[in-house]
């Protein structure tokens, strides 16, 4: 009786392999907010990748005859005081926000997880020192720390990515530290050590895969944070220097003209908001898939 039952419930090998991943994917697809977030995020990625083909005008081309035109058919988001097309600048601006968001999170993810793993694995002095540094960095507000690092590095796209990457690093260190500390005590790590695996091999082959899921999920959520910090720093004029369009500096230059040309600030501001919203929704959905206990 029991034998027969076992036979009928046994799955073919391919199905058994496919199942967890497919189930997760289905959970994700059922979450409408998360899917909407993903669609919008992909749209922004698409706009950024194909900016030269999508943008109707050159984002830097000035046209004295079309200064401060309100939104109309030829310029759906109007033009700025140099006669540049706001819609085209917006599309090109997506490149900066995404590049900074994704690359700085990648920077923080790699540097932070390695530091966190190292701190957990080494424990004692090295671990305490690393985590103490993490605490100190985390006690600063993101933007203030970013400004401080930019004061040292100077302005520019590459420096902005590094600065925000450093701002993101301590979060990832703290995220990977806890689980790594627990996994370190597991038998299979001890077994790996017993057969003489090197520290780095243990860290990367045995400990990292166990915390990778969470790191990636929080990475998508923190991309939203990174884009916010990027918008803030560019808004202050400390990131990418003009004339390169960024959403932050577009909002900034529009403030003085808010009374008679509100489209200058409002459209790029909405773009920032929608992009951050999309990454937040996507990240929330992914987190629910990885850790259903957190579902609200």
């Amino acid at each position: 009786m029991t034998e027969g039952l076992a036979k009928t419930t046994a799955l073919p090998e391919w199905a058994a392999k496919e199942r967890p991943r497919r189930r997760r994917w289905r959970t994700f697809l059922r979450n409408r907010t998360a899917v909407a977030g993903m669609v919008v995020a992909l749209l922004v990625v698409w706009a950024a990748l194909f900016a030269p083909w999508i943008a109707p005008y050159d984002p830097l081309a000035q046209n004295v005859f079309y200064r401060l035109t309100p939104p109309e058919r030829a310029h759906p988001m109007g033009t700025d005081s140099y006669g540049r097309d706001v819609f085209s600048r917006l599309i090109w601006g997506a490149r900066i926000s995404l590049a900074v968001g994704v690359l700085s999170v990648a920077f923080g993810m790699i540097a932070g997880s390695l530091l966190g793993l190292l701190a957990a694995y080494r424990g004692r002095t090295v671990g305490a020192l690393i985590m103490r540094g993490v605490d100190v960095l985390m006690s600063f507000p993101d933007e203030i720390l970013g400004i401080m690092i930019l004061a040292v590095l100077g302005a520019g796209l590459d420096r902005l990515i590094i600065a925000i990457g450093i701002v993101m690093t301590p979060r990832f260190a703290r995220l990977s530290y806890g689980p790594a500390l627990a996994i370190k005590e597991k038998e299979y790590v001890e077994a790996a050590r017993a057969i003489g695996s090197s520290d780095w091999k243990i860290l990367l082959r045995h400990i990292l895969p166990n915390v990778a899921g969470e790191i990636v999920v929080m990475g998508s959520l923190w991309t939203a944070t990174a884009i916010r910090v990027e918008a803030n720093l560019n808004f202050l004029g400390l990131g990418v220097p003009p004339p390169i369009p960024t959403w932050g500096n577009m909002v900034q230059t529009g403030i003085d003209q808010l009374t008679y040309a509100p489209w200058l600030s409002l459209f790029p501001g909405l773009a920032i908001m929608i992009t951050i919203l999309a990454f937040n929704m996507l990240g929330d959905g992914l987190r629910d898939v990885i850790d259903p206990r957190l579902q609200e």
Partner: protein
Amino acid sequence: MAKYIVRRTLLAIPTLLTVLTLVFLLLRVAPGDPAVVILGQYASEETLQAFRERMGLNRPLWVQYLSFLGDLLRGDLGESLISGIPVAEQVRAALPFTLELTASGILLGTLLGVPLGVVTAIRRNSFLDYFGRTFSLAGLSVPAFFLGILLMYLLSIKLNLFPTLGAGNPGDLLDRFFHLILPGLALGLVMTAYVTRMTRSAMLNVLREDYIRTARAKGLREQVVLYRHALRSALIPIISIIGIYSVVLLGSSVMVEIVFSRPGLGKIMLTAMKQRDYAVLQSVMVIYAAFAVFINLLTDLLYGLVDPRIRYD
């Protein structure tokens, strides 16, 4: 409790010291000789040397560090490399504007966020909950400076209800209050979104606990269960969230001050940054850092107040 307060306050000192050291070191490794940056590359060597002498830039690093700490202890923040005005004077003029702004934001975020979070958790999946969740997701995604611009556009430019720029006449309290409303709302509403969301999930976590079921089973009134049993233990994560977010809000206040042209610390910092005035930049950073350390300390002290287990640790 008194012992806990003293101990925790003393613990903040090494943190503050590390943070100060970080600020000091970071700005020392900044590229470029400050003397050349300020006086220009065509300044004569004598002028440069005199400048370094006056600013103490040619002393060994550790001497500079010790005098930096000593000056701080005496409340001396040095003087601007550019204008020569004592930084302490500038900071004293700007600090009240930043303080009133951040305090009103934190107050608003707490007073709106906690009740909203509790109500949405209790009335889970109701219309109110749905509304609250949508509001917080939107609020989490709008940078405070852009919310400020939206409020300014709608309420002061279109409807002409509030003043647009500045912080008001310092002597006129009512005028100052009117100038505070929009920037305070910009910071406070974003914080409300965050606090609502976190309070809701903290409450939901507690409401799932066995002792809540026990409390209900033994026939306690729902009000008692919710407020005496659930909210009290949810208070710990809620306080921690308010603490964490207050630091985030401190960062956002820089941009909001710029949007509304408020003469606060953010403006001093940005001007110093653009002029490469490291003396001013360093002092303003120190103030922001001290501010953040103080918020963290206050959070921990509140912990001790709500949770006796922490006090007797």
